[in-house]
C-alpha cells in the first residue's frame, strides 16, 4: 500500500497510469465493443470524424471504421510491446546471469555476442529479420526482441558480478548447491529489480518499432496496427489528414503513458532506497 501511495505521489506517474489504464481497457474491450473483423467495410469511404455518430472517428479509404481499428490496434501494439519486452527481459536476464556468474570464457563469449548485436542498429536488425522471414505477429516480436535483449543482459551481468561476491552466495556454495541452482535461485532474483526497471523503456521502444515496421509495410497484414493505419493515411495526407493524425496521437499517448508509468515506478523505488 505504501508503495502504491508513493507511486501516485508524482503527477507524471498518475498521468502515466491513467493513460496506460485506458490503453489496457481499450485493448481488453476491443472484442466486446467491436466484435467481428475490425477491417470489415462499415460505411462510405473517407468519412471525416464526428460526422456520423455510428462511426465517430470516420472511415478510411475503404470505408473501415477508424474507431474499431484504433481499439484493435491498441491490442496489437500492447501485445507486441509486452511480448517483446517479456522475451527481451527473459533472454537478457538469463544471458546476463550466466555471463556474470560463470565468468571466464563463457562471460567473454556471451558478452561478445551481445556486442555484436549492439553494433547493429536495432531497427535495422528488425527490418532485415522481418523482410527475410516474412511478416507475421510472432516474427515481428522476435525481430524486436533481437534488437533489445542486450540492454537487460548487460544490466543483469553487472548486478550479478556484485551479488556473486556476497556471503550468502558463498554460503550456498559451501552447502553444496549446484552452481546453476545458485545462479538462478539465489543470484538472479536479487539481480532482477534494476533489470525490470528497464522494462518500460523496452515496451515503449517495442511499440514504436512495431509501428515503424508496420508503417513500412512489414507488419502483419491480417491485423490492424497503428503504424499500418498511419501508412494507409499517408497517401491521402493532404485530403484526409485525420487518417494519419488519429492513430498518430494514439501512438504518442501509448508511448508516453508507458514511459511515465515506468518513470513513476523507478521514482518510487528510488525513494524507498534512499529512506530505508
Amino acid at each position: 500500500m505504501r508503495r502504491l501511495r508513493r507511486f501516485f505521489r508524482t503527477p507524471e506517474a498518475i498521468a502515466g497510469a491513467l493513460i496506460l489504464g485506458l490503453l489496457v481497457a481499450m485493448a481488453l474491450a476491443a472484442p466486446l465493443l467491436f466484435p467481428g473483423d475490425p477491417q470489415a467495410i462499415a460505411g462510405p469511404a473517407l468519412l471525416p470524424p464526428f460526422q456520423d455518430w455510428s462511426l465517430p472517428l470516420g472511415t478510411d479509404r475503404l470505408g473501415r471504421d477508424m474507431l474499431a481499428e484504433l481499439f484493435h490496434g491498441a491490442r496489437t501494439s500492447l501485445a507486441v510491446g509486452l511480448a517483446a519486452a517479456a522475451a527481451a527481459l527473459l533472454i537478457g536476464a538469463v544471458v546476463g546471469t550466466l555471463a556474470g556468474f560463470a565468468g571466464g570464457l563463457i562471460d567473454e563469449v556471451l558478452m561478445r555476442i551481445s556486442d555484436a548485436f549492439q553494433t547493429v542498429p536495432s531497427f535495422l536488425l528488425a527490418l532485415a529479420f522481418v523482410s527475410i522471414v516474412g511478416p507475421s505477429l510472432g516474427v515481428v516480436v522476435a525481430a524486436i526482441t533481437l534488437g533489445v535483449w542486450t540492454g537487460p543482459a548487460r544490466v543483469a551481468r553487472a548486478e550479478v558480478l556484485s551479488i556473486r561476491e556476497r556471503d550468502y552466495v558463498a554460503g550456498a556454495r559451501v552447502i553444496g548447491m549446484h552452481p546453476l541452482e545458485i545462479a538462478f535461485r539465489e543470484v538472479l532474483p536479487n539481480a532482477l529489480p534494476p533489470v525490470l526497471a528497464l522494462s518500460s523503456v523496452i515496451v515503449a521502444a517495442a511499440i514504436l518499432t512495431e509501428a515503424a515496421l508496420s508503417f513500412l509495410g512489414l507488419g502483419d497484414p491480417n491485423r490492424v496496427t497503428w503504424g499500418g493505419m498511419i501508412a494507409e493515411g499517408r497517401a491521402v495526407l493532404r485530403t484526409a489528414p485525420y487518417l494519419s493524425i488519429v492513430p498518430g496521437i494514439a501512438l504518442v499517448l501509448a508511448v508516453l503513458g508507458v514511459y511515465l508509468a515506468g518513470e513513476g515506478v523507478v521514482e518510487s523505488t528510488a525513494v524507498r532506497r534512499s529512506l530505508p
Partner: protein
Amino acid sequence: MSVLTISRRGLLAGSALLLASTALPAIGRAQTPKKGGRLIVAADSEPRNLNPAIVASNGVFFISSKVVETLAEASFDGKDGLQPRLALSWQGAADGLSVTFKLRDGVKWHDGKPFTSADVAFSALEIWKPLQNLGRTVFKDLEAVDTPDELTAVFKFARPTPFQLIRNALPALTSVVPKHVYENGKIEDNPANNAPVGTGPFKFAEYKAGQYYRLARNDDYWGKDEPFLDEIVYQVLPDRTSAAAALEAEEIQLAAFSAVPLADLDRISKVQGLKVVTKGYEGLTYQLVVEINHRRKELADLKVRQAIAHAIDKDFVVKTIFLGYAAAATGPVPKNDPQFYTPDVPTYPFDVAKANDLLDEAGYKRADDGKRFSLKLLPAPYFNETKQFGDYLRQALAAIGIDAEIVNNDPAAHMKAVYTDHAFDLAVGPPVFRGDPAISTTILVQGGIPDGVPFSNQGGYKNAELDALIAKASETLDTSARTALYKEFQKMVAADLPLINVAEWSFISVARDTVGNIANNPRWAVSNWADTYLES
C-alpha cells in the same frame, strides 16, 4: 480610416481583374509550339537496363522511347491506329509468310552513322526474337529479314503469322537499336544498354543514380523543326506522395503514370496552374485480375470460382479503390480496345446470397465458426490499388465464408512466390493489355507454360478446348476471322473463369498548364515527345 474600408464593388472589380489576368495566358494557348526549354518530369523508378529492344516495359519506355524509336507509333486517328516512325509503310503478304517495311530516308543515329535496313534486321533477329520479353512470343516464327536495299526490310516467317498481330505489336515491340554498336560482344552486357543510342528526338546525356536522368535535344532529328524541347530531366522521386508537392512547388512540370495518388487528384485539379489529364494512356490498359491457383482442390471447382466472382462488387472497386478512374471488367479484353472487345460474355453481378448458395452447392458448408475454408491471398505489391484491392477482397471473401490470409511480399519475392513456387491460392495481379490478345493476354490462361515465366498462367489451369482455340487464332491470317476467334476466347474465359477480371484502369498525368501537346496519342507517356513544348 477610409483607406481601410473595402467596398463590395471595389472587391468585385478587383477580383474580376484578377480572374481576367489568369484567363490571359489561356486565351493565347492554342498557338504554335514554342522552341526551347527544359521539361522536368517525375520518375518513380530507376530502371538500370534502358534498352527498350530487350526490356519492353513501360518503366523503360518512359525514359528510352525518347532516345530509341520504334518502326511505328500508336495514333488516335491513323490507319489501323498507327502512325509512321522509322518505317513509312508496312505491307503483309497474303500467305502470312512475309511483311515488307519501307523505311524512312535520311535518318541518322545519335553517333552520326546512317540508319539502314541492316539495323532493323539486326534488331529483329538478334534482339526482339531471342531476347525481348514480349518479342519471344510474337516473333517466334521469324526466320530471316531480307534487306534488298538500304530502305527496305522484308520479315520472313517460317509459319503463317497474322499481319494484324505484327501491326498491333509495332508500337511496343519494335525498338530499333544500331547494329554497329551492338554487333560485337554479348548484347546483354553492352554498355549502350545503360546509355542508349538511338535515332530519337533526344540523346541520352547523363544518369545520376538516385537523382536524375537527363536527355538532350538531338539537333539532327529527322522530324522538321522537332524536337521543341532542349532538354528533358527525369527527377527521381520514389515517394509517391512527393510528386504532388513537387508539382505545386514548380520543381517539376509533369508527373505521368499516376505519380500523383488518385486521392489527391480532386484537390490538385483545383490548384491554379496545374491540369489533370486522363488521356494519353488508351494503349496502356492495366487489368486488375484475381489469379487463381487451380492446384487447390476447392478452387479447381468452377462453382467456387463463380462464387468468388459473384462476391466481388466491381462497382465498389471502381468507385472506392480507383475513385472512378477505372472501368469494371467483363473479360480478358478491356472495354476500351477498339478491335477485339465483346460485351457478349457471361457476367457475374455482385450477389452475396448467390455466391453463398453456389458454395453450399459445391459442398463447402460453413463450419460452426462460419468459415468454409481458408486461403492464402497474395496482392501484387506494384501498385497502391492492387494492395488495397487485396484488403477489399479479403473482406469480400469473408462475407461468403472464405477466410483469406493476406501475405505481403516485396516485388521480387512476390514474383518468386507466384510464378516459380506457386505458393499462393489467390493472387492479385496487374497484367497489361497490349493491343492484341496474342501479345500478352492469352499466355495468362494457356496450358503448359514452364515455371518462372512472369505474367503467365501459373495457376496451373488446363483446358484443351481453350488451348486449341488459342492455337487456331495464332495462325488465322484473316483479320475478321481472327477477331471472331478472340471474341470466342473472351466468352470461354468468362465462362470457365481461369482467372477473374475485375477492373481495367489506366494512368493519369498531372502537368503544369505551360506544358503543351501532351496526351496526343494513345501511348503518349511512352512515345517520343518530339512535339511536346513548354510555354515560358
